[in-house]
């Protein structure tokens, strides 16, 4: 047997779209192969015991992996959640499996039970962090983020939020790496690691010069600041302007599309209509802090 420290990981999927999993697969370096096969940090391996999109097993044998985590030692694994937790109608809007005895498992109950046993919970993507799209008005299925759900159910396991729609692979792997290196990520007032979410997009935007000199794009494809086309960069805390997406290929504002602040809680409602210029009056409704200039 090797001396590698094994970190068990259980990845659950609630009311989501799997976009965060697909995004994780887009990691360039370290790659997802480095994360799951290799010792991502020398001497440390992440053992992904359960992930419905990639795991070999299915049915009752797969569910038994969850049962083993639940009955195993406390702090025996890290819980990762993608997608929001739905609580209306007893959680019936999302079931994730059936035991050999025929018991249907709701995502909500499973997240609660495994949450209590986990050493740490990581909420991946805006749905898991803050409720995301299923929780957008009028929230027909009682969807919410993991931290809010844990609070409701009295689960004390700490939650780190890595929002984004989807989340960026570097944010996810970087946060996991911090944990494996024994570092506690310093988080902001909504639970996001400041390493990735500490800076305002507007303050680091390549088009900021246009904003400052009042040159605004009126049509898609124009040069200029995208504020009049609905950009929410002044409200979004993320390192997209520097890190960019898909191995540094592009990111929304560079590609001519207004940012929609997908890392911010309740962005689907706060910044809607997404293509309409944000005005003082709209922002007053949500009392959103804006950057010092404009």
């Amino acid at each position, binding site marked *: 047997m*090797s001396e590698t420290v094994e970190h*068990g990981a259980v990845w659950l999927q609630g009311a*989501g*779209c*799997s*976009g965060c999993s*697909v995004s994780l697969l*887009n*990691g360039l370096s370290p*790659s*997802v192969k480095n994360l799951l*096969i290799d010792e991502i940090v020398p001497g440390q391996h992440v053992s*992904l*015991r*359960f*992930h*419905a*999109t*990639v*795991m*070999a*097993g*299915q*049915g009752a*044998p*797969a569910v038994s992996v969850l049962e083993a985590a639940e009955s195993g030692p406390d702090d025996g694994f890290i819980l990762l959640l993608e997608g929001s937790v739905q609580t209306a*109608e007893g959680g019936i*809007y*999302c*079931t*994730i*499996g*059936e035991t050999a005895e*025929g018991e*249907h498992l709701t995502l909500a109950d499973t997240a609660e039970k495994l949450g209590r046993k986990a050493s740490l919970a990581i909420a991946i993507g805006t749905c898991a962090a803050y409720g*995301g*799209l*299923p929780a957008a008005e009028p929230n027909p*299925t009682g*969807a919410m983020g993991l931290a809010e759900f844990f609070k409701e159910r009295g689960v004390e396991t700490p939650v780190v939020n890595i929002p984004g*729609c*989807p989340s960026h692979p570097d944010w996810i792997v970087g946060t996991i790496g911090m944990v494996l290196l024994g570092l506690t990520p310093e988080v902001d007032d909504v639970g996001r690691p400041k390493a990735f979410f500490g800076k305002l997009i507007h303050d680091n935007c390549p088009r900021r010069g246009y904003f400052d000199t009042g040159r605004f794009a009126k049509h*898609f*494809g124009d040069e200029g600041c995208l504020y009049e086309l609905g950009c929410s960069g002044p409200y979004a805390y993320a390192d997209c302007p520097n890190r960019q*997406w*898909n*191995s540094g*290929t*592009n*990111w*929304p504002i*560079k*590609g*001519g*599309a207004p940012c929609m602040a997908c890392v911010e809680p309740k962005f*689907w409602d706060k910044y*809607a*209509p*997404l293509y*309409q210029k944000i005005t003082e009056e709209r922002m007053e409704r949500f009392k959103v802090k804006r950057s010092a200039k404009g």
Partner: protein
Amino acid sequence: MAQKIKIDPVSRIEGHLKIEVTVDGGVVKEAESSGTLFRGFEIILRGRDPRDAQRITQRVCGVCPTSHAMASTLNLDSAFGIAEDVPDNGRIMRNLILAGNYMQSHILHFFHLAALDYVDVTALADYDGEDPGMASIKAFIDRGELGPFFPRYEGDYRLSKAVNRAAVAAYVQALDMRRVAHEATAIWNTKMPHGSGIVPGGVTETPTADKIEAYHWKMNQLLDFTNSVYIPVLMEVAKAYLDHAGFGGGCGRYVSYGVFEMEPGGADYAGRKRFLNSGVTEAGGSSVQKLDASKITEDVHSSWLDGPDGLHPSSGQTNPAPGKKGGHSWLKSPRYDGKVGEVGPLARIYTNYVAGHAAVKEVVDGALAALGADAGALPSVLGRHAARALEAKLVAEAAAKWVLDLKPGEPVACDAPVPAEAQGMGLTEAPRGALGHWVNVKDGKIANYQLVVPTTWNAGPADASGQPGPIEQALIGSPVKDPENPFEVVRIVRSFDPCLACAVHMLDARGNDLGRYRIA
């Protein structure tokens, strides 16, 4: 002695799916497919600015967001009356975005979703060679923590050690290739998944020579991978599992809306000249019927939804009814002309093969010859995998050329003012099959929005007349050698590349008659 086998969750698909079959005498007699997540997108969309629809509906699915962005935007172009005004740069970039994600999705499906049903990773347990990638997998196996590759079914891995090893190496290389496919897509779509590049009227990105060259060469790289790794590995799997060309065929009726606009045109999307054209056909048939979107209906008989059966999506009525007696799924049962229809790469390839599409005929005939089979083998587990791989080859080849038609400096989008009152329909194909969006705008806001998506067609339950859905039909009559390790069941299901987040996204208005749509 009949035996029930329940598989919940079905893994290595997108989303939440349960399959239940009854096996008697080694043959599936009954099958039920159930989607187990519901989110309520239509309720959430109502009352919002119509332009937000293509951002919101992308989030139906993180594997095929581009298809929803496309269907939604075609829908809005149609509703806003601007379909004919989309500039050519916009038309082409939209195709490039779709093509890039087709490549990602098909590579992901074969290697990372389906392959573990056929490939045995333990073939590397005694690897003692020099290749660092293979050695790292041996080291992983030695450490003994084998998630997510175990637990798994046992007893039917037929590949030789050499082929297994090559397939595992290909699985790892495919991780890089699908990442490259998303890089290519992001050149035009701002980011992947969930890019913001497709908008009503066109796209947001501006073409430049460096972006054109970058996409062209990434597509060439993907084509090379498809030709030299994806298709050859599939062929090795096919040879070892050739009996899988003899079951899992299912209903044998194929519905396609067509995809990739080849020239400018109006909002009759299924009627436009597309790279893969629309149509309805049957296995063994010699002609293709023109698609008539008015023949699309949905039943809710076996769904956890109340309401009448047989309504056109434009006037659908549904209410969520969890626990409804007789219901076992959040999915509805879409039907074409009252009959069951399969959608997906097999539907597109088969329809275009029968229609005489030269490039499709060439690759399909070539693959069949290599396996010593005829077109009768296409409706099957292997036929679906083959159609998907051959489609990947065709799309990569074509998209590498389409990009060279972009004109830097020309417009990328026309204006798209939101009308006060409008109705629209957008029809396209996601990697998994025919995809339609419908919208009704009142007072400049969404009054109603509907989606009918590919996996609803494929994984939906039996309709009011008792016709099981395509996946259910593909299961019924198929063999199951070992009920403790029902490989055949999951191989059949996965051959459809199910995407359940798409299939259960939507609900119609509660009990309101939404009025009829003009089908443009």
